[in-house]
């Protein structure tokens, strides 16, 4: 669409600009400020330059939780995106069944994150939870509170349960936007189901999938509340992801300088990955 050049439009964006400046820029500057100083109390602080960054980058805690985080986010995307597409393809298209399944699927999205943690905390226990009890009674030794592997698996399963619906709903709306004529044409050509999916549905889903992948990457990369409620990051450090390491550092130990440096590195990683993904997608767009 050709837009008109008009700098008065700035008046329309001004409220957003001011609001975000207040709620994002000022706090972010505070973080930058902390990250280059050694703070003892309100009045004594020394400028230490890049010292904290050096310290944090060599910190094994950061390395460990960063690796755990990337593996986790990778698994989340690999499971939730295909599963979400599959669920969207299976959803009924018309009538009461369609709205009913829409509402039922959306339920996990609307549950506060700590309640999600609570649900699985209860559901997975081998004494009072159906899931843990069922697994144990068919002979699988499952205990998320003491076995790191089980805890990790539970957090992943919880995330799949929690967020696949978002991908599914996005894809569902994308599918509804495909005109019936496309399918009719495909039927006349006797296109296989795979061909319909590959050449009609998938290209039409691309824009919603970009949003879905971006949102899922960013949010799984910031996961905090659910594993915190489930096991508090344990057993050991098996489910301690970046946000939790950071919160422990900033609030638990009050290491303001290193925590601030850590924050900025964290933020930059999210930005970098999202930017890489976004530019590679728009590159593909242009080459097509």
């Amino acid at each position: 669409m050709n837009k008109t050049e008009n700098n008065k439009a700035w008046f329309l964006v001004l409220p957003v600009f001011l609001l975000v400046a207040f709620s994002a820029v000022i706090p972010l500057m505070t973080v930058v400020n902390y990250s280059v100083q050694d703070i003892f109390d309100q009045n004594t602080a020394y400028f230490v330059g890049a010292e904290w960054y050096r310290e944090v980058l060599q910190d094994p805690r950061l390395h460990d939780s960063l690796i755990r985080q990337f593996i986790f986010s990778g698994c989340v995307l690999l499971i939730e995106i295909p599963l979400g597409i599959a669920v969207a393809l299976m959803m009924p298209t018309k009538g009461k069944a369609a709205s009913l399944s829409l509402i039922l699927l959306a339920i996990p999205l609307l549950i506060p994150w700590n309640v999600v943690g609570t649900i699985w905390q209860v559901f997975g226990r081998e004494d009072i939870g159906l899931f843990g009890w069922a697994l144990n009674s068919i002979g699988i030794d499952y205990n998320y509170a003491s076995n790191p592997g089980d805890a990790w698996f539970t957090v992943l399963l919880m995330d799949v349960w929690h967020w696949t619906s978002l991908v599914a709903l996005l894809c569902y709306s994308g599918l509804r936007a495909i005109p019936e004529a496309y399918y009719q044409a495909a039927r006349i050509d006797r296109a296989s189901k795979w061909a319909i999916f590959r050449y009609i549905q998938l290209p039409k889903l691309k824009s919603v999938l970009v949003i879905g992948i971006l949102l899922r990457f960013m949010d799984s990369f910031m996961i905090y509340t659910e594993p915190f409620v489930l096991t508090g990051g344990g057993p050991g450090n098996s489910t301690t992801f970046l946000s939790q390491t950071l919160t422990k550092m900033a609030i638990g130990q009050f290491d303001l300088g290193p925590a601030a440096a850590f924050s900025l590195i964290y933020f930059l990683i999210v930005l970098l990955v999202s930017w890489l993904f976004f530019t590679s997608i728009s590159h593909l767009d242009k080459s097509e």
Partner: protein
Amino acid sequence: MTSMTQNTASQTAGAGSTQQPKRFVLPANAKRRVNTQRRKNIGITAYILFVLVPIYWLLNMSFKSNEEILGGLTLWPQNFTLENYQVIFSDPSWYMGYVNSMTYVSLNVIITLMVALPAAYAFSRYKFTGDKHLFFWLLTNRMAPPAVFLLPFFQLYSSVGLFDTHLAVALAHCLFNVPLAVWILEGFMSGVPREIDETAYIDGYKFHTFFLKIFLPLIRSGIGVTAFFCFMFSWVELLLARTLTSVEAKPIAAIMTRTVGATGIDWGVLAAAGVLTIIPGLLVIWFVRNHVAKGFALGRV
């Protein structure tokens, strides 16, 4: 759910059998389609069961007494009780949590829509200095991990005297809701042809009357969907909401943690409180159910 699926399946099968005598129907093809439909129904039912079973378990627990919960596994409450809910509804320190949460979520939705609507209009209709940069900068805020902002938020809101108010949480949640709202609304607005704006200006409408009387009604499903998303992300967030409040504006999600008492966790009350946090979300999705699918599509596809 299962009965419904069987119903549709048998209907489709019935329709297939009555049509069989007619020559122009390809029986093999029709049979295959019925089979695919049945497989799809089984698949979606299985997935929905996977979604619902953990929630059912919570609901089940909320109607049990603690003795029954800890006494052994029962698939439904043997001694059905509403005691757990009574605990919540009779204690202001419990139910005020819901009031607090609802207050700051509503405030947040209102603030977000008020600032995001004009901004989205500007982004969808005009070119201006730094527009692309501004748009991307806004989106970067959606990517900021809330944990990064925890401490500075706490200090900022304490220093301006907003700590432990609903407004503080509402403003803090704008951090991720405003970028998202601008993003969704911009998509919806770009779907409205420019000619409508131009015709209105030629007809002598002032900008604000045009915007309020003509433009907003045109994108009302988009506004509904945006409000739904803002509600959702604000309602479920806990980390910031908990950090910025202590007593007066404490959200229900934070109050839930106190069921851990001297005698262990009060599972029944915890489950009941959890069930009650699901209800507002259900109401909201019920109102926008017809728009969510159509809405997304208008906005982005």
